[in-house]
């Protein structure tokens, strides 16, 4: 898993919540600041930054719970996109 994917996601989260320190395995939903607006911004950020499309069936809580799980989602979608291009 590319470290810079995690770093970029972490950077986005820190820009939204500068007062909170977020380890890569921290459950962001436990922190209590996730709402539909933030979810929308987060999905848009991931899709634009990493050039992937996240289909409805991947928009699951577990895929966005931690920085690590989001990075894994990006890896998975990137791999699928690259396979489709071959």
């Amino acid at each position, binding site marked *: 898993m590319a470290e810079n994917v995690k770093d970029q996601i972490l950077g986005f989260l820190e820009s939204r919540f500068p007062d909170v320190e977020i380890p890569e395995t921290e459950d962001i939903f436990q922190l209590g600041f996730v709402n*539909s*607006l933030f*979810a*929308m911004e987060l999905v848009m950020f991931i899709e634009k930054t990493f050039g992937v499309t996240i289909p409805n069936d991947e928009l699951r809580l577990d895929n966005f719970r931690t920085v690590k799980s989001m990075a894994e989602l990006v890896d998975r979608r990137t791999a699928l996109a690259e396979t489709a291009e071959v």
Partner: protein
Amino acid sequence: MSPARPVLEVLESGAVHDRASARAFVDEHIAPRANGFERDGRIPEELLERMGAAGLWAPFLPRESGGADMDMVTLGEVHEEVGRGCSSVRSLLTVHTMLSWALRRWGSDAQRERWESELARGTTLGAFCLSEPGAGSDAAGIASTAVESGGGWTLNGTKKWITNGQRADLYLVFARTAGSIGAFLVPRDTPGVQVCPIPEILGTRASMLAEVTFRDVRLGPESLLGPSGFTAGMVLTGTLDLGRYSVATGSVGIIQACLEACAAYTNQREVGGSALRNLQLIQAKVSDMVTDVRAARLLCHEAGRLKDARDSTTIMATWVAKYFASTRAATHASEAVQIHGANGCGPDYPVARLYRDSKVMEIIEGSNEIQRVTIAGEAYREMKL
């Protein structure tokens, strides 16, 4: 009597594909009739069909569905032009756009196959059902419920202030589910759907508002639009964002209409042997309209550009654009009535209608008070405070 002109003939000769073609369409078919639409409290079927033939309803949809792959900046320009002509017509476009975009963004292949082409052609018209008697754009206050049962859903609740609710064929209804807020596609002819017109509204009087009641409406599993779970609210957030963009651009259209009406009026109206345009107090008002319409247009352009780039900061940009454009529209519509004097209070000029419509823009898709709270909160966050 000669037969009606086939819609395809209109399409070939007058498809709307940019600001200039939208302006020509509005000047021919909408602006000269807007006061009549308001008086009648409805948009005639003939115009709704003509708009479909011109490709106005959902031109951002892909060509294979009958759309034009229009980008968001251009869509905003088209909505501005329609808003310049008639806010009621623009409001029908807004809610239809919201439903069509949500379907495109969140719909399954089967849902898109079923509805997209009809939405692109305007043979199915959409409406957006969020507000309730006890809750406006406040999603947390939604009392309507959708209960999963028997492999589908049972929908109950009442939606109020539904633009085009009287005429729409397909409703996008937001209701509380077991764990979130769900979005549901509900055809108007589903048993249990009841439509009650709302007359005598302050502004956008031809927008065919209705109260829509859903009483034990049985829906199949395919009626749920978009994901379930924590991201279900994204459908609402994204759809409202696009609605706000349309209202913002429509508000720019109102300012432009005020400017054009005032320039024409003050050019020919004389006081003391001189045209009104020669009075410096009039020039000050006109110059403020010119300045604000340009500023508001640029804000909308920026919001549209960010949407095209799929940049999440478009949400903030759209709040700012909607707040600025709608407040300036209300100010300038008031000044436009003032400039027209007693003539501005009657139906012979467009400014009384613009004045009524502009007030609505400060309220819909999130009141300006809510917008300001949100904008300020974002500002502190950006400054890490």
